[in-house]
């Protein structure tokens, strides 16, 4: 699965300067879908289904006190999809009788809003199986945000099982520097005040070897050693920049917070078709502090990528040769 020219053009390239450091990089979302339905929809929905069928534990959970939050999530997602992709999704509401039509998956269900027994899965699982985003639902209480429900089939090296029930600063525990910089305290204070109807967004990035969305800690044995296989020859094809478009959405009835994560992968040879991106990424990787290189799991191939990119920067025609 590769990206079409259109997908490459739309890729959410994350770097605004040549040096990357953690900050409270949050921006408002305006007149834009919260959930992105792109050319990888079918592939990713099937992949998600396969992962959930193989072993749902560690990939999906919702604590019992998250029932209202589940319906909130379902309501927001259905409305968002129907508003922004009317050719594929339709929501018909007659009082509490709702009919959901997903033409992409050839699926139609009529159910009673707030009555769980009328859906084939509980509401959060039902709807999150139909989007490409991983989604975390956070409960807001005691001046904190708790990771109390989630679906996570495409994580960048973390474990839903391990983080279940944790507080905001606890599940960010392993991140270097950001605690000392005060990023998490400030980010949390901000998130707790996110208002109904005023969602926010931020980008996060790392790198992945091979076009693989499921880099969970649970499946580490399947992908960890791929990082040993990067060479100057296969770098452009194997190494991917991995960008997460994250959203922060207030859940109106439960007063919780929804955190959808859409993961986009672009191979280096796709990326270098844009010379500005090539130069930027080269600089960012050169300037990246060692503890971030380590945390992001780049240590084994960071150097190879820099060398490869330097060749492309110096001799752009190599890019064409590679792609």
């Amino acid at each position, binding site marked *: 699965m590769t990206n079409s020219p259109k997908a490459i053009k739309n890729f959410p390239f994350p770097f605004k300067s040549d040096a990357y450091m953690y*900050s*409270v*990089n*949050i*921006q*408002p979302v305006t007149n834009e879908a919260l959930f992105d339905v792109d050319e990888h929809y079918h592939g990713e929905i099937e992949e998600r289904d396969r992962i959930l069928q193989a072993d749902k534990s560690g990939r999906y959970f919702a604590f019992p*006190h*998250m*029932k*209202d939050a589940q319906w*909130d999530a379902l*309501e927001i997602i259905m409305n968002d999809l129907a508003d922004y992709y009317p050719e594929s999704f339709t929501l018909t509401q007659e009082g509490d009788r709702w009919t959901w039509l997903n033409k992409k998956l050839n699926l139609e269900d009529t159910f009673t*809003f*707030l009555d769980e027994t009328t859906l084939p899965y509980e509401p959060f699982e039902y709807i999150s199986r139909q989007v490409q985003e991983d989604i975390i639902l956070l*409960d*807001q*209480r*005691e*001046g904190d945000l708790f990771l109390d429900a989630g679906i996570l089939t495409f994580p960048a090296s973390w474990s839903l099982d391990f983080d279940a029930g944790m507080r905001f600063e606890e599940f960010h525990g392993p991140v270097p520097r950001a605690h000392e910089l*005060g990023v998490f*305290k*400030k980010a949390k*204070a*901000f998130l707790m*005040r996110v*208002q*109904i*109807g*005023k969602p*926010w967004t931020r980008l996060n990035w790392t790198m992945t070897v091979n076009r693989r969305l499921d880099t969970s800690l649970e499946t580490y044995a399947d992908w960890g050693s791929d990082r040993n296989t990067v060479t100057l020859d296969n770098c452009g094809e194997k190494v991917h920049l991995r960008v997460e478009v994250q959203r922060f959405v207030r859940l*109106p*009835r*439960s*007063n919780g917070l929804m955190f959808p994560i859409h993961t986009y992968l672009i191979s280096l040879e796709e990326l270098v078709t844009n010379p500005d991106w090539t130069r930027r990424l080269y600089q960012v990787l050169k300037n990246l502090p060692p503890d971030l290189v380590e945390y992001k799991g780049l240590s084994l191939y960071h150097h190879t990528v820099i060398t490869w990119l330097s060749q492309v920067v110096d001799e752009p025609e190599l890019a064409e040769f590679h792609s």
Partner: protein
Amino acid sequence: MNEQVVRVVEIEKLTPRIKRFRLVSVNGKLASFSPGSHLAVEIPLAKRQYNSYSLCSSPYQTNFYDLAVLLSENSRGGSEYLHQITTGTELKLGLPKNSFALNSLARKYILIAGGIGITPLISMLFVITRHQIPFELHYAAKSPTECAFYRFLQQYGDRVKFYFSERGNRLNPKQILQEQPLGTHVYLCVPQSLREDCRGAASALGYPKSAVHRELFGAVKTNKFKPFTAVLARSEQRIDVPQDKTLLEALEAAGIKANYSCRAGGCGACEVKVIEGEINHLDSYYSPAEKAEQNRILTCISRAKSKQLVIDL
């Protein structure tokens, strides 16, 4: 603020001084809300103002909002205005906000209301009973006729206790709060003196602070900002910041390249050093200690207390 436009479809006199207004949307759908939420209502008087009221309908009800409004003698005219409107009137509302949210993990809820303070607790009852969590409601009022929702509350039987001052019934915080199960959360929407009594009793009985909640209305924007002048230290350019513009907007209007990300005082991207002048910090980004240093400002939200602010640009 005209985020929601509603029409009044029903007005009910709950007591001689409290009216309930049922509102439906004119321009689409009503925003959903969580129990304990309030919202701003625009009062279209000569001097436009916004009053905050708690929602007292069910959060699961998607077609209408209910608000209950007390006619208050020393108001700025907002409640008088609402008490004389008729059905069919259109009103402008803000979006719901919640500073009095239910803790979703409570084993039991104790709700304590005084007079009009009952309103946010009504919306909570719909949620608490749907989730079948034990609760008690203790409700102090002058008399049954001065007691809003008196009939409505009968359905909950002996889980609701009334205290009518006319009959000499007094609410005793200690008696109510003692011998409750671990994990009980207390919600107070009562006059200040009773609130202090309740908090004192809760603390003496060992309730954790985070288990005692009180209603605090979020400040509704008054737009009462003062204009000031920003002086750019490097170019000595003077930029006037009018009351209805942020410093960031004024800088941009003057063609000065200024950083920003969230434009809401939350991310720090627009920070600028302050060389001289007193800052009125309005952000949620700096800690109190950082605010006290008075040496940097978030231009997207904060302003000057002094007439002029010299900044490092």
